[in-house]
């Protein structure tokens, strides 16, 4: 699998990363390098092998349904660049 410049541009747009046209060839080379490296895994025959999701056979932990958190609005808003009263604000988004 190899990425063309259009695909690299599209991935950047989906990730909201602005890139310069002149950076495209370099990025394309790096991404293709990564893909090629990962593709080595395809050489391993895993036919009939159950996917392994961890080493410890750990099960997903769950919690009881009780309220233990929240009510910390100041902390929640502490990094907001433009909070107004109890709200975050962002440049207007209307569709």
């Amino acid at each position: 699998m190899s990425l063309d410049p259009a695909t690299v541009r599209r991935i950047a747009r989906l990730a909201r990363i602005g890139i310069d046209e002149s950076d495209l060839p370099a990025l394309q080379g790096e991404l293709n390098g990564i893909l090629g490296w990962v593709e080595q895994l395809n050489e391993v025959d895993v036919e009939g092998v159950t996917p392994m999701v961890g080493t410890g056979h750990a099960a997903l932990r769950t919690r009881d349904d009780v309220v233990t958190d929240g009510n910390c609005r100041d902390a929640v808003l502490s990094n907001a660049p433009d909070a107004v009263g109890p709200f975050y604000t962002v440049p207007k988004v209307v569709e």
Partner: protein
Amino acid sequence: MSYTLEGRTGTWEIVVGLEVHAQVISHSKLFSGASASYGGEPNTHVSLVDAGFPGMLPVLNHECVAQAIRTGLGLRARINLESRFDRKNYFYADLPTGYQISQFTHPIVGEGTVEIELSDGTVRHIGITRLHMEQDAGKSMHDQDPTRSFIDLNRAGVALMEIVSEPDIRSPEEAGAYLRKLRQILRYLGTCDGNMEEGSMRADVNVSVRKAGEPFRTRCEIKNVNSIRYVMHAIEVEATRQIEVWEDGGEVDQETRLFDPSRNETRSLRSKEDAHDYRYFPDPDLLPLVVEQTWVDELERALPELPDDKRDRFIKQYGIPRYDASVLVAEQAIADYYEEVAKGRDSRLAANWVTGDLFGALNRTGRSIQDSPISAQALGGMLDLMADKTINGKIAKEVFEDMLETGDSAADIVERKGLKQVTDTGAIDAAVADVLARNADKVEEYRGGKDRLFGFFVGQVMKAMAGKANPAIVNEALKKVL
């Protein structure tokens, strides 16, 4: 009797599938310990997990899993003992992490089915494709400021169940029936309150049209429709639009649209080509969810009786028509009320009073069954007075109205107003003699063969006795004399 739309080039049928987002009833959120309750002060039901702070890790709420499994069982669906959480990536201001944790490739619930009943009595089965758990997003407010949108994250991270139907729905009426049935099942199970006005149940509607016998054509998705009536309108409006596009020689584009009820139209919402490129991948913060069959069995044993089962039992146990049974199981509280009234009494008469006079009274007074001015015991007490012939059916109506107004028991009202039915044959015979004497001409006609006049005599005697006479005794007395 199938639903079709007429175009210039012939008859079209519609194909609809629904994705319903149902907010799970739980105390805390799906992956954080913040409160999941509705209506808190802005940004107070928010933890640092919900706000997407770096390093925060999600921990799954056990009860939300139980709720999803209960719902799956209620939809007669397959429960997947192993399921997974994936990240659905998109950027929006009310999604702080930049991804929604959802279940994409391995949902917790697989195929199921919902039985719906249409107004003409037709029964159809709508397939369920899947049910998965996911997080709700926050709320954006666009009307607070000219240049900024305000964000409240109270709802961000609350557990949702997305319930996806097969494209089995063929008319707006079926869509409405499906949503009502789904809401009924969720409410019976106690897994979602089904309140569409508060947004705890919302529907995305997939609509396409086709000529009879064709394969599916391109569909459009109408997002976030928040009432059953709007869903039904939106389907019709969108199908009509698509027929026009096809008939004008155009192509329907697969896209997301918005229904505007005030203009009765749908319009394109996100024309961006990337709108559906969510780049799903397994959430590395969460291991696969494995549940034990024994736990599923335990949850199944604890399920309440579901509406379809209850309806079938009512038909059998109480000998009432299917229609009445369906009406009585519409809400669990109504069914409980009815069963209390019917217990040890004439169950058909009880059904008539509950679905007739009681529902009428509730409608008139704008009350629900939970705060009915006449309790089940009180209505039962009135039926007892009818059963032991203390009052007749006509007087019962009067007693019922009085109960509605005063809240007194039927027995007290009968006592206070002196409504006890007269079974004293002497008094009735006297009234009969009096009526016949005053209507000698009609007696002649009756005896001359005008049988219909019998009803007139009964009416006159009842009137003379202020409605309190036992109708059976009056009939008998009249027959004897005539």
